[in-house]
C-alpha cells in the first residue's frame, strides 16, 4: 500500500509534471484563458494518460523493445482520437474552442514520459493510477493558472461574473504574454515554497 501512497504523492506534488518536470506545457498554456476550457482539457488529458498507461502496461510484455516508442504513440493517438470524436459529437462548441489543442495531446510529453518511465515497468493497475494522478496534478496547475487569468482578464470564474461591473479588465492576462507570466510565477512560487529541500542550503533571503 505504501507504493500506492508514493504514486499519489509523486503525481500531485513531488513530481508534478508541469512545474517539476516542465513537461507538456505546450498545450497547457493555450487553453488557460478560461477555466472551463482548462477543466475540459485537464479531464481529457487525465483520461488519455490513465488509459494509455494502462494499455502500455498491459502490452508491455508483448511489445518488442526497439519499436516500443511507435507502439506507445499509436496507443496514445487512439485514445486522443476517441476523445476528439467524443467532444465533437457531444460538445461541439467546446471542441471548436479547444481547436487543434486536443490533437496536440499526442505530442504532450507527459503521456509519453509516463508510459516510458512508469508504465513500461509496472503492473497495469498501478500504472493506470499513476497516469490518472499525473493527469490530476496537471489539471490542478492548469486550473490554478486559468483561475487568475480568467479572474483578472474577464472578472469571472467559470463564466460567472464575480468582480462586478466596475472591474477594469486586464486584457493582458487573456493574451499570450499573461500565460507566460503566470506560468513563470507559478514555477517560481512552487520552487520557493514547496521544494526548498532540493535547492542546496535552502533560501537565504
Amino acid at each position, binding site marked *: 500500500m505504501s507504493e500506492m501512497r508514493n504514486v499519489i504523492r509523486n503525481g500531485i506534488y513531488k513530481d508534478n509534471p508541469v512545474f517539476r518536470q*516542465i*513537461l*507538456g*506545457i*505546450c*498545450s*497547457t*498554456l*493555450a487553453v488557460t484563458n478560461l477555466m472551463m476550457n482548462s477543466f475540459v482539457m485537464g479531464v481529457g488529458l487525465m483520461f488519455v494518460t490513465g488509459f494509455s498507461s494502462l494499455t502500455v502496461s498491459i502490452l508491455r510484455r508483448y511489445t518488442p523493445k526497439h519499436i516500443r516508442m*511507435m507502439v506507445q*504513440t*499509436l496507443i496514445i*493517438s*487512439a485514445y*486522443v*482520437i476517441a476523445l*476528439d*470524436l467524443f467532444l465533437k459529437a457531444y460538445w461541439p462548441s467546446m471542441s471548436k474552442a479547444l*481547436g*487543434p489543442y486536443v*490533437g*496536440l495531446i*499526442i*505530442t*504532450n*510529453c507527459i503521456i*509519453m514520459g509516463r508510459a516510458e518511465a512508469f508504465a513500461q515497468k509496472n503492473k497495469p493497475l498501478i500504472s493506470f493510477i499513476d497516469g490518472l494522478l499525473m493527469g490530476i496534478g496537471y489539471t490542478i496547475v492548469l486550473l490554478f493558472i486559468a483561475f487568475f487569468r480568467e479572474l483578472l482578464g474577464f472578472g469571472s470564474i467559470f463564466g460567472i461574473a464575480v468582480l462586478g461591473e466596475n472591474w477594469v479588465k486586464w486584457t*493582458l492576462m487573456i*493574451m*499570450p*504574454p*499573461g*500565460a*507566460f*507570466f503566470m*506560468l*513563470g*510565477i507559478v*514555477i*517560481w*512560487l512552487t*520552487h*520557493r515554497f514547496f521544494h526548498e529541500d532540493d*535547492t542546496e542550503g535552502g*533560501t*537565504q*533571503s
Partner: protein
Amino acid sequence: MIDIHPMVIFFAAIFTNNMILSNFLGMCSFIAVSNEIRTSLSLGQAVTFVLGCTSLINYFVYHYVLVPLSLEYLRFIVFIIVIAAFVQLVEMIIERYFETLYYSLGIFLPLITVNCAILGVSLFMIIREYNLFQSFAFGIGSGLGWTLAIVAMAGIRKRLQSASIPKGLEGPGITLIITGIMALAFLGFSGIVQIQ
C-alpha cells in the same frame, strides 16, 4: 477556402501568429535547448526544413488519401506517422550524403518528432482550410518564426548568466517570464497582418 495571399500568411506566421509566442507550440525544446545561439540556430534550421516538407506531405496525404476515403478522423495518427517517418528518412539521407551537416544537425532530428509545433502546423492548416501554397507558406513561416524566437531567447539567456536572479526563479522560471516579455513585444506587430 479562405482567400489570403500566401505571402500574408508567411509574414503572419513569423510575426503575429508566432508558433511559440502566440500559440505556445514547441515550448519543450524551446526551454531545453535555448542555451546557446549556435545550437538553437541549427535546431531552428532543422525545424524549418521539416515543417516546410511535412506541411506539404500532410497536405497531400490529407486531401488525396484521407478525404476521399472519408477517414478524416484518423488524421492525428496519420500525421504523426508521416512526421516520424519523414524525420527518420531525412536523418538517414543526411547521414549518408552530407556528413558535416549530420554532425551539426543530427542530434536534433529525433527531437523534432515530438516537437508540438510540427503537428500543430499540420492541424492548423487543416482547421483553417489552407490551400497548397498557403499551407507551404504557413509551414515555412512558422519554422522561421520559431527560429527567430529561439535564437533571440538564446541571445538573451547568454546575458542572463552574469545577472543575479532571485532564487527559485532561475532556469525555466526566468525563461518563461522573458518569453512573456518577448510575446508582449511581438504583440506590437499584430497591427500589420492578421490571420485568425
